[in-house]
């Protein structure tokens, strides 16, 4: 019995789609322009850095939701891919002396993809709770390797600091930290997030995306239609791992110092929390969830020392009330209901 998670039937056949698409495309590009200009307009480094932090985790949450929202598998091991992305960047810079950002990001995605393939190959046969616990156990093995500093690569729990990479030969790393982030790196993350959204929007509406939904909705039927479901679950894990790895790699430069905590299972829990808060049954839910989670945490932190309680309560309430809709899905439904009431009133 696959996890019963609804999809998002927002794509209607025929011309209605055209209209819908335009409206959303319009809103999307407006938001993109606003975000792109934000640092220049406000010169507010704190907000810029906060947005950069949120966007990195938005990419990770989007990548994670390929496996949960689209293929119906709850993984508690995605920190392995996020951490793999981070450590690849740090170790490539330190040991291999690679300083070019594009090369580093591609390398990080490849390494995360490989880790995704390994963990995926071992776990795609299992279901629901066993899948969650197996991915958790496998990711924790990676965490233990990092804390033990096996092979002298990760330098244990104190972690490794990293310098700022250059970009296609341009020595941008010399620019002071402030301008590096607001003038250059923030926009790199924004471009990566936009590319991820567009790429996934197409991929998850392609035959491949439909196949993942088939597996989520009814495994037996999918297999009886000639789909090798284990192989496609593995593809889903690999694609997801690469995108989460990209999020991790981008974030490594933002935080500047990598410690094994980013591989720990509580980090996986955070990524799951973000996707769920936003709404795993929606396409953009995870992006909203990442923003919601980080802002909520920062707010809770500034208000009370019992911020764990606040976060726990929010997770509990969201799971019970909104389930796969999340705040984004719930908001959309509210808007639709308002439209209907306005239309027929």
């Amino acid at each position, binding site marked *: 019995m696959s996890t019963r998670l609804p999809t998002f039937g927002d794509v209607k056949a025929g011309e209605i789609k055209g209209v819908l698409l335009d409206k959303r495309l319009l809103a999307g590009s407006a938001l993109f322009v606003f975000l792109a200009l934000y640092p220049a307009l406000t010169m507010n480094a704190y907000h810029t850095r906060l947005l950069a932090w949120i966007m990195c985790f938005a990419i990770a949450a989007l990548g994670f939701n390929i496996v949960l929202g689209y293929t119906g598998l*709850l993984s508690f091991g995605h920190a392995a891919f996020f951490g793999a992305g981070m450590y690849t960047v740090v170790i490539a810079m330190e040991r291999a002396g690679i300083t070019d950002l594009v090369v580093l990001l591609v390398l990080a995605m490849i390494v995360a993809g490989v880790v995704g393939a390994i963990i995926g190959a071992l*776990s795609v046969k299992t279901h629901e709770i066993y899948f*969650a*616990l197996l991915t958790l156990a496998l990711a924790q093995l990676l965490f233990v390797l990092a804390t*033990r500093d096996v092979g002298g690569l990760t330098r244990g729990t104190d972690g490794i600091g990293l310098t700022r990479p250059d970009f296609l030969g341009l020595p941008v790393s010399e620019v002071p930290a402030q301008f590096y982030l607001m003038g250059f790196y923030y926009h790199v993350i924004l471009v990566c997030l936009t590319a991820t959204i567009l790429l996934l929007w197409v991929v998850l509406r392609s035959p491949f995306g439909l196949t993942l939904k088939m597996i989520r909705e009814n495994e037996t039927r999918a297999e009886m239609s000639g789909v090798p479901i284990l192989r496609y679950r593995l593809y889903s894990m690999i694609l997801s791992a690469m995108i989460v790895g990209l999020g991790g790699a981008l974030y490594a430069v933002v935080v500047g110092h990598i410690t094994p905590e980013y591989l720990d299972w509580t980090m996986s829990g955070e990524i799951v929390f973000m996707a769920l808060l936003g709404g795993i049954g929606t396409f953009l839910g995870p992006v909203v969830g990442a923003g919601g989670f980080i802002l909520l945490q920062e707010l809770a932190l500034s208000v009370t020392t019992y911020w*764990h309680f606040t976060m*726990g309560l929010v*997770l509990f309430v969201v799971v019970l009330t909104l389930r796969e809709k999340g705040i984004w899905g719930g908001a959309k439904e509210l808007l639709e209901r308002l439209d209907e009431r306005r239309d027929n009133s």
Partner: protein
Amino acid sequence: MPIESLMVNTFNGLYFAALLFFASVGLTLVFGILNLLNMAHAAFYGLGAYVAVWTLNNMGDITTSTVVLLAVLVLVIPLVVFVLSAVLDKTVFAPLYEIEPVYQLLATFGVILMLDDVIKFIWGASPITVDGAVDPSRQLGTLDLLGISVSAYRSVVILIAIACAVGLYLMFVKTKLGKISQAMSEDYEMVQMLGINVNRVRIMIFSISVAIAALGGALFVPFATATPAVTLEYVLLSFAVIVIGGLGSLKGVVVAALVIGMVRSFGIAYYPALELAIVFGLMAVVIIFKPEGLFGDEGVVE
């Protein structure tokens, strides 16, 4: 390998197995019988630890007799937590019984965060320990067992764990509640249809399971420190135990607790660096090759 250190490590393994048994048996029963996967189960182990330290330290002036202290740990604290969990079952956990295991896992992940801060709110953030005067493990001292001197208190803890396991087994085999629970673990809906007051059985099973976890926490404390990290450590370990033992199987928990207890004890003694990795490695291997665990496909007590 000298025979004594073999004996000592086995004894340490038994002690750790006993603690693991307390922390995990409730988790597997609640999942096996009530279909509720409660990630926050180990948080009650942590709660039991803090309540025990607080109770013992405040009993200093009333009495310091070992028997009374042990009675408090074994009876009073589990009873208090039993009542508390009955209330919690009705309020916090009630809505979780209908939702899918995936969502149960996530909701109870939230409960861990909440319980963590409740403990911090009441007892503060830094570790607390039982004062020397009211610490039964110091009062009982050591005893000779087959040529090695071991802590008497820890032997008592092992005996209590064995008694608890046997007690649970008898409960399932002999009592009405036990038989109904076994039926529920096979076919939950069918039992409901038979008109049995499922809610009452549910609260009993849930509260007994949580009380046992609290008992574990209480017995654990005299010999160690109650710190915020206890809950998180035992969440992972208890999942490893129930997965290896087989979800929903009492026999599974006993065997798996022994396996991990020995692995940990001998691991620390001879290959310390690997100790943590072994537990996760074992868990991964079991899920991959025998997902239902050692005794998962059998009933609660077959």
